């Protein structure tokens, strides 16, 4: 019930976001008898695709964050900082340099394969090192991500592609147009897959022995989770660019009141993620109107403040 209310709020917010922009689009100009042809075109070609891209990215990255946290059994990891996004960027760069004629779908697949390898490497390292503190896990992710990042920067610099790399790292929805974001619909399918397998991820989050005891195949669940996280990350990087803090913040906030049962948490993370990115995108569009600040930048600012608050509060409670 509360979920329904939250969903309606998000939909209203989304409808509101359609009206923001330099070109004048208002409900009046759309539905009056003398409908404004240009406003309608702006709506269909730019505003609606942008709104959909924002919601799809929010939903899928939030859920991917939740899944990654369950796979590594640590709340402080995020696809954006645990090697997934960085290796996806590296893959995308490799595809751009080595096979520039590849269609977007092909590039996305290359990026996804890299993201898969990068995240698998992250998990492999975690198996090898003693995890003395919960902070070791995100630190390993940051280090690994930085290594990928420096390789990417090195080659991008030599090939004069730094600007593209920057675009992959900074999610910006202002370039979203009809025909250039549709790949993101696949992420909705992946989110649904995650929901169907929700119980498995919850159980995997309790550990390998726990999972085996309940008769499930731990490595198969890990593989499924890795594929979902990598594909989502790669698609987001290829289409609009990464959004920081989303995959970290939203699952953590949701967990505070629904707990970690993925069956209950995933719908909330999906709605919450969409709301978070929507708010960041709207803020970025109105703060310096008529100019824009990329949604990812706003997400970085808002996210870091919220996360600090959350960290301090959580330490006080659980320790």
């Amino acid at each position, binding site marked *: 019930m509360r979920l329904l209310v939250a969903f309606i709020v998000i939909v209203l917010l989304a409808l509101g976001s359609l009206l923001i922009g330099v070109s004048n689009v208002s409900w009046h100009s759309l539905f009056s008898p003398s409908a404004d042809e240009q406003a309608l075109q702006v709506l269909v070609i730019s505003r609606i695709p942008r709104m959909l891209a924002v919601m799809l990215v929010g939903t899928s990255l939030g859920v991917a964050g939740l899944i990654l946290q*369950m796979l590594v*059994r640590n709340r402080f990891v995020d696809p954006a900082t645990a090697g997934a996004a960085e290796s996806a960027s590296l893959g995308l760069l490799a595809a751009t340099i080595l096979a520039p004629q590849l269609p977007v779908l092909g590039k996305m697949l290359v990026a996804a394969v890299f993201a898969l390898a990068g995240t698998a490497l992250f998990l492999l390292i975690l198996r090898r090192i003693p995890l003395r503190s919960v902070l070791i896990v995100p630190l390993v992710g940051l280090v690994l991500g930085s290594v990928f990042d420096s390789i990417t920067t090195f080659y991008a610099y030599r090939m004069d592609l730094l600007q593209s790399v920057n675009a992959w790292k900074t999610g910006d929805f202002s370039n979203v147009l009809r025909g250039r974001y549709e790949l993101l619909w696949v992420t909705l399918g992946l989110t649904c897959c995650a929901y169907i397998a929700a*119980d498995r991820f*919850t*159980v995997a*989050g*309790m*550990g*390998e*022995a*726990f999972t*085996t*005891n*309940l*008769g*499930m*195949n731990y490595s198969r669940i890990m593989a499924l989770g890795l594929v979902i996280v990598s594909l989502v990350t790669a698609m987001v990087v290829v289409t609009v660019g990464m959004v920081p803090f989303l995959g970290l913040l939203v699952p953590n906030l949701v*967990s505070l009141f629904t*707990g*970690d*049962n993925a069956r209950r948490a995933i719908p909330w993370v999906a709605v919450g993620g969409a709301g978070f990115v929507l708010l960041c995108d709207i803020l970025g569009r109105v703060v310096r109107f008529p100019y824009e600040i990329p949604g990812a930048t706003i997400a970085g600012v808002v996210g870091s403040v919220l996360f600090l608050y959350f960290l301090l509060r959580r330490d006080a409670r*659980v320790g």
Partner: protein
Amino acid sequence: MIETRNVTKRYGDTLVVDDVTLRLPVGGITSIIGPNGAGKSTLLSMVSRVLPMSSGTVLVDGLDVRTTPGDVLARRLAILRQDNHLTSRLTVRELVTFGRYPHSKGRPTVQDREHVERAIHHMGLDALAERFLDELSGGQRQRAFVAMVLCQDTDYVLLDEPLNGLDLKHSVAMMKQLRTAVDTLRKSIVMVLHDLNFASCYSDHLIAMRDGKVTFQGRPEDIMRPEVLRAVYDLDISIQRIDGDWIATHYR
């Protein structure tokens, strides 16, 4: 029946479990006792297939645990290990419901829900059912995990130190609840216990391990003898018979 044949676990050059061949009795409570590092928990983990063995075979009702599909075994055998400190934020009821997963595959029926309520009630968790695991004390959490394992409704239940973190009152309550589960539901419970006297008072069968080997096994009155315990623990332990139980006094 659970049967182990030449089960061995090796870490590098160290033998943790050394060629153990055992037939665990059906029905009743079997407790594995022995000093630290005797390989008790390792043996239990290998029997329940959550830890691969270096060599040997474990048969559960004739099914080889290495080759039998996981979900088939999950309906015959349940294990609770000690390492449940790091847990997700699930409510007690959610956790216990996961115990039904091998039967329900994630779609609990009315019967599954009845099992869940019974297990929660049996472990005295009714008032805590909606609480999150991280809001419970160590002892309450331990009871929640035992409730989940009982809810799995398997013939064999393996518990690694179920009294860990429980105070005296809850330890007694836990052992009584396990005893009831054995007597009314005809389950076979195998557990690792550190407290000799709890093991002696509640078990039908004791298995003593030392240095990776099973050194003695038998009824409590066969094992609770000074010469046997001396060989297991390297300690002089005198045995008293109090109210029909064999009690070890080893505190001085």
